[in-house]
């Protein structure tokens, strides 16, 4: 069993790790071993950031991607939780949809790109659809497992105290009891959603993905790295904010 680190030690080691990584990267880029077009130096990224912000491109792309991300995330999360809950609570519905789920689940979201274009055109709706699809499955399975895992004794408690009807059972026992598992799914969806944003925008919808695609076509790899860092930062902020909310919502856990 490893010994837990003190907080300041842990933070210092994390900062050291990042510094070593960036220095090694910078050294490799400057050494000339790899052509600069193939591997930009990290020191080129801040200048690229300033140029993109001054041109207004960075803000436009971030806002566009956030729009796709948030709408896809919302749709996929709500539908995933709803369908996961329904499948976990009703055996007939679970049996009826089990093989449909098995057939559809292994198909990656990017395989749906042709249909997204056919159904929605090269539009924001197409990107939203693809992001929602990715997020849906994560939330579906997390919710299904969480709802099935709710303590049956608590369900019985509901019946014993007149809360056995569908609505009170669902909202007073099942969903609160499943909440830790559901929120784990939502959190996983936050990360997977950003991954799909890039894939969804690569086929021409304006956003971080399309900007990266354009920049890579011009071998402006420092721009590509800038947007990679942007995605990482946006995910970091989303995850951090979500963790704050999660900690408050689950304050009842030890």
């Amino acid at each position, binding site marked *: 069993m490893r010994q837990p680190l003190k907080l300041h030690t842990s933070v210092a080691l994390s900062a050291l790790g990042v510094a070593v990584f960036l220095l090694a990267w910078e050294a490799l880029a400057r050494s000339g071993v790899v052509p600069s077009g193939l591997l930009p130096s990290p020191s080129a990224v801040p200048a690229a950031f300033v140029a993109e912000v001054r041109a207004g491109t960075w803000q436009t792309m971030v806002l566009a991607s956030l729009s796709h991300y948030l709408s896809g995330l919302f749709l996929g999360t709500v539908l995933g939780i709803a369908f996961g809950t329904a499948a976990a609570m009703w055996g007939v519905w679970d049996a009826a949809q089990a093989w449909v789920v098995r057939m559809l689940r292994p198909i990656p979201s990017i395989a749906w790109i042709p249909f997204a274009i056919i159904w929605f055109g090269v539009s924001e709706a197409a990107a939203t659809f693809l992001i929602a699809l990715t997020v849906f499955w994560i939330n579906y399975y997390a919710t299904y497992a969480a709802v099935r895992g709710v303590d049956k*004794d*608590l369900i*019985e*408690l509901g*019946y*014993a*105290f*007149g*809360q056995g009807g569908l609505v*009170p059972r669902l909202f*007073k*026992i099942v969903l*609160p*009891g499943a*909440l830790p598992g559901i929120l784990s799914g939502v959190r996983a969806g936050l990360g997977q959603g950003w991954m799909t944003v890039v894939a969804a925008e690569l086929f021409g919808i304006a956003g971080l993905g399309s900007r990266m695609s354009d920049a890579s076509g011009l071998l402006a790899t420092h721009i590509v790295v800038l947007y990679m860092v942007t995605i990482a930062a946006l995910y970091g902020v989303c995850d951090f904010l979500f963790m704050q909310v999660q900690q408050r919502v689950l*304050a*009842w*856990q*030890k």
Partner: protein
Amino acid sequence: MEKSVIDLKGVSIGYGPDAPPVLVEVDLSVERGSFVAIVGPSGVGKSTLLRVVAGLHKARGGTVTIHETNKPGHRPVSLVFQDARLLPWRRVAKNVRFGLEGLPIGTAERDERVAAALRLVRLDDYGRRWPYELSGGQRQRVGIARALAVDPDILLMDEPFGALDAITRHSLQDELRRIHRETGKTILFVTHDLEEAVHLADRIIVLGGSPARIVRDVRNDPGRDGGVFREQVEQLRSGIADNYSI
């Protein structure tokens, strides 16, 4: 008002349509305000009998009648479980409020009944605590408060002190006797602990045999100690042993 509050006539209980019955020919009439203990060996069907009275398990045969007082804003039957069974995402006061939700009472009365129930179990200042912040005994008190808050005609208790240490158990037994005195509720109390039954109940029902049935129905004077107490416990013990094979 009916003298009896629970009437069981020819009740038989099983766990599945094809499984043999575990409990048969149960005829039992429980007087209003009485404290009845149900004792017997493990697996004899004590808890299941309680769940049948609570309406959580359907009897295979016979009739179960609860003579409700039909007071508005109350539930005829409420249950205290062995494991307290608090909802971990609700603070103590909200756990006590659980059974009141859905009853036709106003917010002010609801809050007053929660406060009164917490006072009754001496947890007045614990309303804002989370269940994980409570000891086992305190959790069980909250379970009792939740059951009392709905002002039931009948309080069903399924080995409520079985998982507690001896000191806490004895303390809560005395609390329960006080609560019974103060509220006058009818209590049906399942236990495998004969001393607990003799200490608490004014009537003791002994289940035994296979399939089980009522083998003894004993009037008791609770709260006694010394020789009379021991004698009563020994009589019950032999009553169970006569009808029990390992």
